[in-house]
């Protein structure tokens, strides 16, 4: 094999190799999370962040506008303080509400931002005032059971009896 043929084949090999890397980077992976994209930081404190993870998406109307960058515990108020990194091209009003949502029952946990009507915009380092904590399923279930139990003790003893009565009737 002469030298120019080898050069050609190596050139083809390197070209398709880099093509594969570019394919992996652009078509398979997303570049949104690259720290080099210009952005600004917002803080938000929650009573409970549930299963929120670092680098979880921040979405407004379903569009990813940033990522969760830091999660820490405020030792004075015992709230979770979440630092969000928002793309510079997106601005949010001062009365924006941040809530922790789950996409589907088993889906990923993300922070949703709902912009309000204020004319003043949030700046780098600002804190989002209104937040809504994560819904913890166990708490929800226990609350539901507790309500059911206390409701039954107060005045809903009758349905239990109606269940017993037909059973007795069928015996006779």
């Amino acid at each position, binding site marked *: 094999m002469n030298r120019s043929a080898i050069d050609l*084949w190596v050139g083809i090999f390197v070209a398709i190799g880099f093509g594969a890397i570019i394919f992996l980077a652009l078509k*398979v992976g997303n570049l949104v999370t690259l720290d080099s994209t210009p952005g600004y930081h917002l803080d938000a404190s929650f009573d409970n962040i549930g299963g929120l993870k670092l*680098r979880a998406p921040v979405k407004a109307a379903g569009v990813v506008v940033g990522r969760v960058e830091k999660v820490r515990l405020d030792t004075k108020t015992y709230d979770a303080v979440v630092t969000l990194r928002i793309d510079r091209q997106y601005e949010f009003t001062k009365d924006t509400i941040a809530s922790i949502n789950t996409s589907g029952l*088993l889906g990923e946990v993300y922070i949703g931002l709902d912009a309000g009507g204020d004319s003043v915009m949030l700046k780098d380092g600002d804190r989002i005032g209104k937040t809504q904590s994560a819904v913890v399923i166990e708490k929800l279930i226990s609350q539901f059971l507790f309500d059911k139990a206390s409701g039954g003790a107060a005045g809903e003893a009758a349905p239990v009896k109606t269940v017993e009565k037909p059973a007795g009737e069928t015996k006779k």
Partner: protein
Amino acid sequence: MSAELTAGVAQWLRRIGGAVTGAASKLGFVSRFLLAVLWHTPGAFRRMHLTLREIYFAGVLSLVIILMSGLFVGMVLSLQGYETLKRYGADEQLGILVALSLVRELGPVMSGLLFASRAGSAITAEIGLMKTTEQLAAMEMMAVDPLARVVAPRFWGGVISMPLLAALFSAFGIFGGYVVGVRLIGIDAGAFWGQMKAGVDVWPDVTNGIIKSFVFGIAVSLIAVFEGYDAKPTAEGVSSATTRTVVMSSLMILALDFVMTVFMFRGASVI
């Protein structure tokens, strides 16, 4: 009786000690060998056609096996992943399963193993045979350094080829997964690519995969050229050196993969 026992224990200890010092001295030899190869790298790159020739032999000629394996691994991953994901009604997540397993683990590891057996063994056999037929000694007689002329181009040919081969393996695997998942099973193409794009990050997933394959390239190439250079100059010596290359590089790839995975994806998976 007791004298015999102490002699037996001493013999046993001596054997352990010999094995340890042998391994340590070999490790030292390998390290010095690597430094020598790196030292001769500028000389090897000055005659670029030598390195290009080795990229041709190690990379271009490995393309067929790498691409075919990638395609089949991706197809089988898609088929098996679908069976499991279907039970949880999460079959739309197939794209992310295929892409993450290929980009993070299977791409670098499988192409590293294939590269070790396809190209690494050939490099060892070639250098070992050059040593057996005293071509290396003849080069030294002609004041041509075999490290610069023979070893360094082969080392760099492997190091350069390996990340490209791993990326091609992953890309073809994802294509194979797409063919089976979307064309054969009938998952929505938009969900396949969309979930994949949402779940795979360029940093850390794709970048760490490339770093892994680069490290594997260094490990396999170093083991291959070293075993060839260190081979006993007999027919048996060359054959056992070739075997050692494949065994050692495979073990090295799997061990290094575990260590690198622990450090690379610890943050991503725990927090």
